[in-house]
């Protein structure tokens, strides 16, 4: 051991932990020899007061802090002292009991530890109150330190040191902030009963903290923070997209609204002016119309008057015309009727004849009415006819009739007789051949007649059976001359015809009477005719005059008709004018009413019309000219426009609030609803760009989040790298029979993969090459990405935050010779007791060493109980390894361990443990030089 080796020199306990005095060398490996339960561990644990200092980090197992204090500091002269060789020289750190309270305080000074300094001349130990002055007397100006101050000194925390403090840095840590961890591990290495992978992990994380970007990632809040905008934008985009039809309708409404505003602004002064002028216009127009109407009425009256006169004239003329025409017609008729009448006498004659005929009829009828019946007349007729026939026969047979024959043939007497006997008709028969009488034998006849005459005696003719006085008989036929006969015949004929007529008349009395009537009628007709004829004659005479008159009248009528027609037309047109005037008046009136109504319905005095000019509008391009006659329409249109505008206002406001309900809130911050709408429409119009921009934002958010995750992943990688170094460190020497002893991080695959997914997504986003490809697979809809995100959020929420230690766990990988490496989480179960002890110790020392400043090696101590369970080979290895890490190893066992440099037995004096340097046994290898 060279003096240049800085580090612990010795530990001294005075009146403490059951030791009256203990001096333990610490500048090299030590084997404390004592039976079990004799205070080996207490001795080592005493170091905690000096090295750990912080009560919270000290560990005395099952003992309570009070008991521990009482045990270590029973008196105010109880001391725990440590001598250290530092680059600044030898130094002593001490802890002294304060007495009854079992409290203690720290002191330190530069200089070597000389036990005489603490012993009074009477052999008693220096009590705490006098310690500082005593040490000062001994030339060692000690200082009392607060625990925290001393800790700052020991762990080289310059910031907490005063400038006049000596440099007492025993543990030159690379990072003084790791003092706490160092202390905890140191405690553990002093007491290696329990060290599992989780603790190792915790320590290693502490140790490597400065290599890791020590970030506690609240992934959810990071994600939410980065995606807040994106999600908000996306929700806005979705809401707008969902309501696009509505928004388009609204945009149209807005356009209409702007137009309407322009129109209303343009029309408003005109309407004002129009309404002001209207009353005068209405009055004037009314009067004018009324006047025109009245003048038309007068005109129409005149026309009507004239028309009446014409009608009268027309009627008169027509009557006259008809009269003349009637005459003419009469004339024509008569002309036709009397076409064959040459003059009036002809007719007179006819009348005469008829008159006679009638008279005859009258006579006959009268006779007939006076005379017998028809039978008597018929008998008369028969008689007369017979007479006439006889006469005719006589006339016919005047030359050869039977009478004459008889006259010629017969004597007078006979003749006379026969003429009396024979009937006249027989006598008048013709005697010509072939007739009734055939006188073919005249002599026979004459004889016969003679016979007959014989029978005649006087006037008496006697014939068998009868006699006849012929005197009673007249001669039947007296022969008359032809002339006589003819006259007689004529008479007969006349009588006959008269009788026949009479008979006829009697038999046909009704007929005759009728006939009489007919004849009388004829007569009357003829009388008419005669009258008519006379009329004809007079008409004929007036013909030319008449025709002239007719023509004149017709001309007159035509003239009247013409005039009437013109008049009617005139009147019609006047009436039409009047009607139109009436309509105009009505129109005017209705306009007036409408205007009045519209005037009251005007909305433009109310908001928003009274500040319409301040609102955005489209200037109206149509020329606006106020026409008084159209004022009603215009004002109504104007009112309608106002109404419509208000309607649109209401609708838009409703629709807007509907959109708000739908979640479109992006533009609500605008100063007015109007600007909100404009912004909304602009946004909607550029929806695809917005989508792209959201996508870009999403990507940049992914990049942001990924950057944080990348830190995590990098930390994980750094940690793994440091772990490899650490493994190298603990594997420099083989531990026991372990072929492999490693502490390796095992990644939590799912989490690391999720992180990787996010990072690689962000890398895709970053690299322009795959931008297009990426475009098709929108970040926000990436399933894999979302899953990774959800996993990390879930994990982060469960753990409060996401830290690098959540991404892995540590396993001990152990393999003995000829075995496959196996992973263990708890090293205790991995191997035999001794091996496990070694592994723990090495791990602990390596960790402590890891924290120390490699430039300032100050050798401290570590402790291994039950050292007997290790063989010497392993003990040596362990000692060397510990030395490499800057530790002197303290073995504790009932038997001496000869691998150590010092063997220190614990003795007992008056019931108190004691270790005196006089009992130290220093072992040194026998070298050739030594032997020599």
């Amino acid at each position, binding site marked *: 051991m060279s003096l240049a080796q800085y580090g612990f020199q010795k530990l001294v306990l005075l009146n403490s932990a059951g030791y009256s005095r203990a001096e333990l060398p610490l500048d090299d490996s030590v084997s404390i020899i004592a039976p079990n339960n004799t205070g080996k561990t207490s001795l080592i644990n005493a170091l905690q007061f000096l090295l750990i200092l912080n009560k919270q980090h000290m560990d005395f197992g099952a003992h309570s802090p009070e008991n521990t204090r009482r045990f270590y500091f029973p008196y105010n002269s109880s001391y725990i002292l440590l001598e250290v060789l530092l680059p600044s020289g030898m130094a002593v750190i001490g802890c002294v009991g304060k007495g009854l309270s079992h409290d203690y305080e720290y002191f330190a000074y530069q200089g070597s530890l000389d036990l005489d300094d603490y012993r009074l001349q009477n052999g008693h130990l220096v009590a705490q109150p006098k310690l500082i002055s005593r040490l000062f007397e001994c030339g060692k100006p000690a200082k009392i330190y607060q625990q925290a101050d001393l800790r700052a000194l020991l762990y080289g925390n310059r910031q907490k040191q005063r400038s006049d403090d000596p440099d007492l840095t025993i543990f030159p840590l690379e990072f003084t902030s790791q003092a706490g961890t160092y202390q905890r591990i140191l405690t553990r290495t002093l007491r290696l009963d329990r060290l599992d992978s989780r603790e190792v992990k915790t320590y290693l994380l502490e140790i490597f903290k400065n290599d890791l970007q020590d970030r506690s990632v609240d992934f959810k809040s990071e994600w939410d923070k980065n995606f807040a905008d994106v999600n908000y934008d996306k929700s806005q985009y979705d809401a707008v997209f969902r309501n696009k039809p509505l928004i388009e309708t609204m945009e149209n409404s807005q356009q209409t609204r702007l137009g309407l505003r322009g129109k209303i602004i343009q029309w408003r002064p005109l309407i004002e002016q129009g309404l002001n002028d209207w009353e005068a216009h209405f009055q004037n127009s009314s009067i004018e119309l009324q006047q025109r109407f009245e003048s038309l009425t007068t005109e129409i009256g005149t026309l009507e008057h004239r028309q009446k006169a014409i009608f009268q004239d027309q009627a008169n003329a027509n009557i006259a015309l008809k009269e003349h025409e009637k005459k003419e017609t009469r004339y024509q008729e008569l002309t036709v009727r009397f076409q064959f009448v040459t003059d009036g006498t002809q007719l007179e004659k006819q009348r005469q004849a008829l008159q006679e005929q009638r008279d005859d009829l009258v006579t006959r009828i009268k006779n007939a009415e006076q005379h017998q019946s028809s039978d008597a007349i018929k008998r008369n007729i028969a008689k007369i006819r017979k007479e006439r026939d006889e006469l005719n026969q006589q006339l016919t047979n005047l030359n050869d009739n039977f009478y004459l024959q008889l006259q010629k043939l017969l004597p007078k007497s006979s003749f006379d007789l026969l003429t009396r006997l024979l009937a006249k008709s027989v006598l008048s028969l013709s005697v010509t051949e072939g007739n009734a009488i055939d006188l073919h034998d005249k002599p026979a006849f004459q004889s016969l007649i003679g016979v007959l005459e014989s029978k005649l005696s006087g006037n008496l003719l006697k014939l068998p059976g009868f006699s006849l006085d012929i005197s009673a008989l007249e001669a039947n036929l007296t022969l008359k001359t032809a002339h006589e006969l003819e006259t007689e015949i004529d008479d007969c004929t006349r009588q006959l015809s008269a009788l026949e007529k009479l008979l006829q008349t009697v038999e046909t009395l009704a007929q005759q009477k009728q006939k009489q009537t007919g004849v009388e009628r004829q007569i009357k007709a003829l009388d008419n005719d005669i009258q008519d004829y006379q009329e004809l004659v007079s008409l004929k005479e007036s013909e030319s005059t008449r025709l002239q008159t007719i023509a004149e009248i017709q001309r007159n009528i035509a003239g009247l008709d013409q005039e009437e027609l013109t008049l009617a037309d005139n009147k019609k047109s006047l009436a039409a004018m009047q009607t139109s005037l009436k309509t105009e008046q009505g129109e005017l009136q209705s306009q007036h009413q409408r205007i009045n109504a519209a005037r009251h319905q005007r909305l433009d005095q109310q908001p928003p019309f009274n500040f319409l000019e301040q609102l955005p509008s489209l200037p109206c391009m149509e020329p606006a000219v106020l026409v008084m006659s159209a004022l009603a329409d215009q004002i109504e249109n104007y009112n309608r426009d106002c109404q419509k505008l208000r309607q649109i206002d209401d609708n838009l406001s409703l629709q807007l609030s509907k959109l708000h309900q739908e979640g479109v809130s992006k533009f609500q911050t605008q100063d007015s609803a109007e600007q909100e709408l404009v912004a909304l429409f602009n946004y909607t119009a550029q929806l695809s760009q917005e989508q792209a921009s959201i996508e870009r934002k999403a990507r940049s958010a992914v990049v942001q989040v990924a950057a944080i995750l990348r830190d995590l992943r990098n930390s994980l990688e750094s940690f793994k790298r440091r772990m490899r170094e650490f493994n190298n460190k603990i594997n420099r020497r083989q531990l026991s029979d372990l072929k492999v002893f490693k502490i390796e991080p095992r990644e*939590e*695959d799912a*989490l690391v993969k999720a992180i990787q997914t996010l990072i690689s997504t962000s890398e895709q986003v970053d690299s322009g090459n795959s931008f297009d490809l990426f475009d098709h697979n929108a970040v926000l809809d990436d399933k894999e990405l979302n899953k990774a995100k959800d996993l990390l959020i*879930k*994990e982060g*929420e469960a753990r409060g935050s996401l830290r690098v230690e959540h991404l892995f766990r540590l396993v001990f990988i152990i393999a003995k010779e000829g075995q*496959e490496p196996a992973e263990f989480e708890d090293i205790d179960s991995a191997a035999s007791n001794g091996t496990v002890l070694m592994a723990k110790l090495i791990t602990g020392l390596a960790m402590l060493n890891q924290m120390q400043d490699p430039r300032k090696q100050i050798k401290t101590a570590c402790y291994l109980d039950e050292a007997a369970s290790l063989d010497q080979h392993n003990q040596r290895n362990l000692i060397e390894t510990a030395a490499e890490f800057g530790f002197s190893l303290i073995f504790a066992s009932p038997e001496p361990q000869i691998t150590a440099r010092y063997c220190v037995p614990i003795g007992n004096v008056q019931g108190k443990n004691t270790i005196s340097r006089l009992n130290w046994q220093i072992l040194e290898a026998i070298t050739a030089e030594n032997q020599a």
Partner: protein
Amino acid sequence: MTIDLKQLPQLHPLFKLLSSGAHLNRLQDSELWVELENHQSQYETLFAALGFSLVLDGRGYAYFKTDQASTYTGKLTRRLALLLMLLFEYQADQGLHLFQFQQWQLDTPLINKLHIHYHAILEAEEITSPQTIKEILDSAARIGFLVLEDGVYRLQPAVHRYLDLFQELAQAERNDPMQTEDDAGDTL
């Protein structure tokens, strides 16, 4: 050791889950897992006092170790063991790394392939159709060996229990290459 039950807010759900024979998987039940991790020793002690042996495997699963098995779980365990073994064999044949089993997607095509490929073996266990396989997987999902997401089964870390067993068996076989088949059967 004094256990303050107020410090263990998730005791009820944890106990309910674990005592039902289900496995707690690290990422599936993050909250419970973290709770268990943070208070591991308390829970171990508490459950031990109740007669349950809590096993918390750092690979991401926890369960109550029990030696008793009901006939049902016995049958399910046997069938699931068979299925998983076949699955591991099949996937190994496909060149997939067994330890990445959590990334496998056990979907219908894969189940059908398994069914066709190991028809005869499955038949012996009365697993006659892909539907039966799914039923077994569903049952396994209920006790935390798998999880069904979007119609796809994913193996959970608890499957390490089976995988460890398979590896042990494989190791045993490798270490004793000369052992006869009968002996191997006895070992199993």
